[in-house]
């Protein structure tokens, strides 16, 4: 949900730097981007747009309850 998966990552860290809410981090062993805090993803797609190899997949659904003003 929200940010879903990373496939074909080249470890350039562009997405990590570009994510405003610190959702993605570099895995120190594999040297690849890893989704660590998906619950804080604001589904803004900046990471995907900054990724040079289009490795990131994002879904419009949020992984935690969505609180709005009326329903």
């Amino acid at each position, binding site marked *: 949900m929200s940010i879903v998966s990373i496939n074909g990552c*080249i470890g350039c860290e562009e997405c990590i730097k570009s994510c405003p809410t610190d959702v993605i981090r570099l895995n120190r062993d594999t040297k690849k981007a890893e989704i660590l805090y998906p619950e804080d993803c604001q589904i803004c797609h900046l990471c995907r747009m900054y990724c040079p190899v289009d490795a990131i997949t994002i879904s419009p659904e949020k992984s935690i309850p969505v609180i709005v003003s009326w329903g």
Partner: protein
Amino acid sequence: MGLIMNKESKIYKLLPLILVFVGVPLLLWALGEFPKRSVFKELLSLIIILTFSLLLGQFFLTRTNKILVKQIKMSSVLKIHKFIGYVFIIIIMAHPFFIILPKFFDNTKTPFEAFTILLTSFNSLGIVLGMVAYMIMLIILITSFFRFKLHLQYRTWRKVHGYLAMLFIITATSHVINIGRYNSTSFSIYYLIVVASGIFYLLRIYLFKSTKKVIKND
């Protein structure tokens, strides 16, 4: 370079190979739980996946494949081998560009920027493996092209070509497994089996020198 497969029977005889090197990857791609992307991007990916598996198939499309050579004419096998060799190596050579091709059609990073990042991500094992494999591939391509100018004995040439191919396939497969967008467990197992049997096949021939009969066919 042209391959003319004018007889349907040939295709029929090649069927097992086609199944293993086109059918299986297609199946794995279709069944795998990979995120769906636009048709254009998926098509690019598919081309690369199939190209790679067909390159793996090269191990079995040589004059050392006795069964095949018996069924189809030697010259046809060689033609197919050469065709796949040249055409698909060119596709593989171009595949880093395929990856940044979509950047021509959006407003984000320019293709040049994306490519620069790609080529400088040295901390990625997958990228480094890919670059090494790329170099070896270039060497294979150049030596194949100028094979007769090199004035090598056929035996020596065959060995050089075979070992280079082996080296290439090992680095390339590690590259694919490490960094490929479609690097599921099933894909990895498939690659490993194919590469292992390919290498085994090659080594058996080289090390046990049981190929004399075949060479007589020349």
